[in-house]
């Protein structure tokens, strides 16, 4: 089954991304410059998951009006900035999303 081989390959990739630097490479190969750029990896990748999931509907169309996900995401960001707490951020977003879809937009 294709999903099993995919899972195993993904497992290997994940393992070797952790193992490679520990076992294979020398510290000197990484300059400060590369380290600085690598620290931006989360900021470069996570929005590619976040933005389409908020702004696009299931068919891939752009949804700017009447989109409760945008409001919920803004609330989550504000709560996140105030509390610096991962769970508070996730749940404030989810709860405001439910409030919007079940009470306001319904």
């Amino acid at each position, binding site marked *: 089954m294709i*999903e*099993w081989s*995919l*899972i*195993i*390959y*993904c*497992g290997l*990739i*994940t*393992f070797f*991304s*952790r*193992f*490679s*630097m*520990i*076992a294979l*490479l020398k*510290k000197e190969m*990484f300059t400060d410059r590369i380290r*600085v*750029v*690598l*620290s*931006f*990896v*989360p*900021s*470069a*990748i*996570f*929005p*590619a*998951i*976040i*933005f*389409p*999931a*908020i702004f*696009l509907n299931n068919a*891939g169309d*752009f949804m700017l009006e009447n989109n409760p*996900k945008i409001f*919920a*995401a803004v609330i*989550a*960001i504000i709560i*996140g*900035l105030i509390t*610096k*707490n*991962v*769970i508070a*951020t*996730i749940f404030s*977003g*989810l709860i405001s*999303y*439910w409030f919007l879809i079940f009470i306001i937009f319904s």
Partner: protein
Amino acid sequence: MNSKLKIFFKGIVDVSPLMIPVVPFGIIFGVLSIDLGLTPITTMAMSIIIFGGASQIIFLQLFSAGASSLVILSSVGAVNSRHMLYGLVLSEHMSDLKIFWKIIISYFLVDQAFAVSNSYLKNNDNKDRAFHVFGGGATCWVVWQTTTIIGIFLGSVIPEKLGLSFAIPLTFLALLVNDFRKLINIIVIIISGLVATLGYELIPFKAYVIVAAAVGLIAAMILTKFMRIKE
């Protein structure tokens, strides 16, 4: 108690507070995986074989959208590239260990373990200090597998109408929220997000994640070259 075991337990104690956010994350993963039609066994296998929250959720997202294997693998690779940074930082503390322990500790090197062990390792010169990472990572492993199982059971109970898939962008948003305070990060976030959104339909093979990440990293390279940053 020998020193390896002592340091291992110290790792468990130190990482414990960081396990609180892992609980909902693991449950969300299990619920979503079942929602998206994967079997309980495949879901469990992902948590054991991949053992990386962000990688597993990206896998789910792309797999259920029908992305090709190559796109899934390269996206997981891109998400994982931050682990190379962890390995790089920790490698000097692990250079005396046998290859067996390097393999074991690598498997357990997750974000939370790195976060707590990084400062411990800097302030200790015990030759077995790397076992702190093992303790932290093993704790995270137990929590992750347990919450995956809970999520698998809840997945068949929780109605689809709740729109729990919205928890995916929220989870990543929560992981990024400290970066919203830094100007260069904000610019990189917006650039990557726009490329992904606009390229979602245009970029073939669902490769929008990789393309957006590459554009975002190039932007970070240019911006950090021209704007002085002090962390």
